[in-house]
């Protein structure tokens, strides 16, 4: 009943408005498919993920995939909780790595091997073995390592030139070089330029701060699984991270405001997700890219963030159908379509870079990347928010860095200790 009314509404819509390719999922006639599976995703019908879905559906393998946009990770998770509690989980869902434990232990993401061991191994074989631990929780392979991005440095080439800086960027930049350039930008352009307003933004998010801590030789959670924010190395990393903010070179703002300022030519340097390489170089800022800054004299150990595609349905036929889609996603064809979004190639397939601006990101992947922190425990969902809160406090000088790291360590320890 529900199904038919939904279909008729979509058909009505198809007639009423010329939806072109956008509503492709909605307009597909139901009879072409034996099984219909729904994916709760963080991307709308206008994003490359939809192209992957459409390409799969066009193969007419007896499985029709419907991509349903459910908001950001937090919003999609809230909806998943509701639909799982209502007894009709989405067949598949896209979830951030940071929610890995929550997905396995609370939402009940399925072990792909338990659905079909042979197929699961075949799918996993398409990926770089180094990324598989990210989707292995409690010994179970809970999904496909789908999207992976890493922060890189974007520079407004016009402002850079006007400040008299060398257009030849180092391959492995460090903070001395980056902060020095930021100072020169400020002294040359501040209050003298029509659009220039601020030198630098490192992004106030959990990936970049984690990179700094790691580059200083510290950990957020050490290899033994213990919180290590209190260590002198971690404190030193955070001090380096906060330094440009204390110096007035960096005005910490939200990601959207940061992007808007960069695209308007108000911000000269911005370190943020490599996915921006599909946008920034082609806008008014004419961005050029290089790797994320390391710390002078220290080994580089960069960080990444991303999400995975997991299966939640309890129905075996639906689960098998989901594997069929995952197989396509893992294939060379699926990965090629997907790469246009600006995520890193985590597969073993040889896929050309979408543009030269992605080179630093690919380089960082070759150098080796760590994963964003997957906060353990049943209250792991809160970990990220708490860490961000303390990062904000330190950046805004609400608390000295050493005290802030101790405060964060204590609060997070209590959270993780809760089980």
């Amino acid at each position, binding site marked *: 009943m529900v199904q038919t009314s939904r279909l008729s509404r*979509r058909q009505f*819509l198809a007639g009423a*408005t010329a939806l072109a*390719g956008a509503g492709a999922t909605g307009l597909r006639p139901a009879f072409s498919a034996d099984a219909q599976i729904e994916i709760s995703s963080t*991307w709308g019908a206008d*994003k490359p993920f939809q192209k992957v879905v459409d390409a799969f559906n066009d193969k007419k393998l007896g499985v029709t995939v419907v991509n349903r*946009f459910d908001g950001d990770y937090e*919003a999609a998770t809230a909806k998943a909780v509701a639909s799982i*509690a209502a007894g009709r989980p989405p067949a598949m869902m896209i979830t951030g790595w940071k929610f890995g434990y929550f997905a396995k232990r609370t939402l009940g993401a399925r072990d792909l091997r338990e659905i079909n061991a042979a197929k699961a191994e075949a799918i996993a074989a398409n990926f770089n073995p180094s990324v598989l631990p990210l989707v292995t929780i409690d010994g179970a392979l809970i999904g496909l390592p789908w999207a992976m991005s890493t922060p890189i440095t974007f520079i407004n080439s016009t402002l850079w030139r006007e400040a008299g800086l060398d257009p030849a960027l180092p391959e492995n930049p460090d903070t001395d070089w980056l902060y020095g350039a930021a100072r020169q930008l400020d002294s040359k352009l501040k209050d003298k330029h029509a659009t220039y307003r601020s030198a630098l933004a490192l992004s106030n998010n959990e990936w970049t701060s984690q990179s700094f801590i790691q580059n200083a030789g510290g950990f957020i959670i050490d290899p033994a699984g213990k919180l290590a924010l209190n260590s002198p190395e971690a404190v030193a990393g955070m001090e380096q991270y906060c330094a440009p903010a204390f110096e007035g070179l960096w005005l910490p703002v939200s990601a959207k405001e940061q992007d808007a300022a960069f*695209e308007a030519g108000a911000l000269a340097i911005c370190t943020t997700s490599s996915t921006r390489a599909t946008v920034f170089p082609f806008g008014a800022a004419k961005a050029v890219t290089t790797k994320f800054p390391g710390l002078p004299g220290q080994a580089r150990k960069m960080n990444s963030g991303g999400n995975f595609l997991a299966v939640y349905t309890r129905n075996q036929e639906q689960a098998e159908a989901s594997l069929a889609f995952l197989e396509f996603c893992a294939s060379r064809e699926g990965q090629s379509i997907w790469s246009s979004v600006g995520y890193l190639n985590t597969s073993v397939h040889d896929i050309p870079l979408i543009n030269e601006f992605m080179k630093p990101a690919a380089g960082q992947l070759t150098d080796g990347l760590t994963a964003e922190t997957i906060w353990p425990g049943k209250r792991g969902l809160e970990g990220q928010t708490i860490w961000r809160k303390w990062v904000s406090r330190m950046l805004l000088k609400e608390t000295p860095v050493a005290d802030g790291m101790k405060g964060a360590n204590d609060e997070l320890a209590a959270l993780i200790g809760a089980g």
Partner: protein
Amino acid sequence: MTARSTSARSLALPFSLRRAVVHVVLLCLSVATVFPLVWMVTSAFTPNELIAAKAIRLWPEQPTLSNFTIAAARHPIWMWLWNSVLTSTLITLGKLVLALPAGYAFGRMEFPGHKFLFWLVVATMSFPTVLAIIPTYIAIVKVQAFDTYGAMIIPSIPYVGFYVFYFRQAFRSLQGSMFEAARMDGAGIWRQFWEIAVPNVVPSIAALSVISFMGAWNIYLWGQLVLEDTFKKTLTTGIAAFADLDGAEVLWGPLMATSLLSVVPVLVLFLIAQRFIVDALAPGLGEK
């Protein structure tokens, strides 16, 4: 005019000048109030590629309607518009169906428990909606109503404290003699309510309907939570779809075009009804 500006205020400004000052102040304040929306309106008509290049734009450089077509091609915005109209209308109707008879009974009938029940209902005026969200969300999930129009509409209706309070005042301010006459003619309780009382408070009903409609139109948090299917979303919840995970690709132009679309219907409704609203609110609020 001359009769008005007499003796006692020889030192005060002349009447017309004072009026002019008030006009200037009000005009400045009105412009300041709508100013934050100028960017939305100009961006809605500026080609998407040009928007990010400038922080401030008072006029679109190359006016275009392309943002609307882009938005419609990517998201079912016309369906969202229809859903907004549908849910807001049903919520408003539901509130009227509950509040009109209750307001009438509280205003014009004596019965045991009158006072207690009145305060029981009116005290809910002070309940923030966020308070009920968790238990209601759990209940919606447990009765399998998740992702239905009903989940959006039904829990939004019972916030009628304001409406009951207001209708009670409106019904109380009606002349008792009208009802006397009707009773003489043998009109029953229902007919007194439906044929005498309700037609006499139509302006109040209209005013509250507009207020309710505007409130329901902008329900955001709850809609985000219980509506899942793209085709069931309303405009205000659907707008969030423009700002998805890959923030770099925020389509400012289509986003602003859809935002504008979400404002225009309620604005038109308000402009049509505004004089009416003020006139109608007055008797309901006056002390009886």
